[in-house]
């Protein structure tokens, strides 16, 4: 967390040393209003992207939901890289994470369609495909978030190495 911008003379820069720095009450609407607004905007954009993908590559009724699987995999890979970037590599404006992480990526990926599509496969007489989809999605999602975070950490370490060595 960044220290507050106006520091009185003699005040500590380190936020943990001064109990008065994080004075913002988390529930205050003055603070939460902009956050809720960018989450809504990002969510609308992310969901539109998911809907666009479903129009570009429509899944036949009762078919294997490859598009939702792909959308979720892409969203998980991007959040893996994004979270490493904004929490380990550089600091970001306080609205960046709510807008992109909570809004865009949260709106783009979906858990409800995953569960309901699994039910549809089972109900439609394809329990094998349903079970495969049920297990494959979390496997692909975790592999995506983990490998993207790993690659981003390695890339950041590689970029910062010459500066640290000199």
């Amino acid at each position, binding site marked *: 967390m960044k220290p507050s911008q106006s520091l009185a003379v003699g005040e500590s820069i380190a936020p943990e040393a001064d109990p008065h720095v994080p004075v913002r009450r*988390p529930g205050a609407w003055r603070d939460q209003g902009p*956050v*809720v607004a960018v*989450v*809504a*905007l*990002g*969510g*609308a*954009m*992310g*969901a*539109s992207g*998911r*809907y666009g993908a*479903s129009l570009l590559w429509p899944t036949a009724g009762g078919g294997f939901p490859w598009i939702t699987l792909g959308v*979720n995999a892409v*969203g*998980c890979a*991007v*959040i*893996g890289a994004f*979270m490493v970037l904004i929490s380990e590599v550089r600091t970001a404006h306080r609205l960046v994470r*709510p807008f992109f*992480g*909570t*809004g865009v*990526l*949260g*709106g*783009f*990926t*979906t*858990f*409800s*369609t*995953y*569960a*309901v599509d*699994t*039910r*549809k496969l089972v*109900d439609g007489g394809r329990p094998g495909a349903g079970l495969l989809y*049920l297990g494959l*999605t*979390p496997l692909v*999602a*975790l592999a*995506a*978030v*983990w490998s993207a*975070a790993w690659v981003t950490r390695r890339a950041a370490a590689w970029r910062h190495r010459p500066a640290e060595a000199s």
Partner: protein
Amino acid sequence: MNWLLVAVGAAVGAPLRYLTDRTVQKRHDTVFPWGTFTVNVLGCLVLGVLTGAALRGAASDSVQLLVGTGLCGALTTYSTFSYETMRLAESGARFLAAANLVASVVAGLGAAFLGAAAAEAVWA
């Protein structure tokens, strides 16, 4: 018009996820991501009801885009779910990571079945 329905539904669903997550996370002091778990299971239940209603002809295409693709799609999340699971595993809480994975999948699927069955009973 269809795009607008999805966008409006998501503009409600995503903040609802954010506010629910904050409310739930404030009410417990464990590292288990109950907030994301709650919105995901809730979204599966609502989308289950909606698909059941659609099957009986009780939900129009517009309602499905607004409430299903838009609201439920944005209320639930796979990206935060997998990121939080990975963070649990990285922090050494491997059991909680596995528990989050299994509980979310089982409860989400159960909610989808329950919602659909309830809708098919109501709109029989």
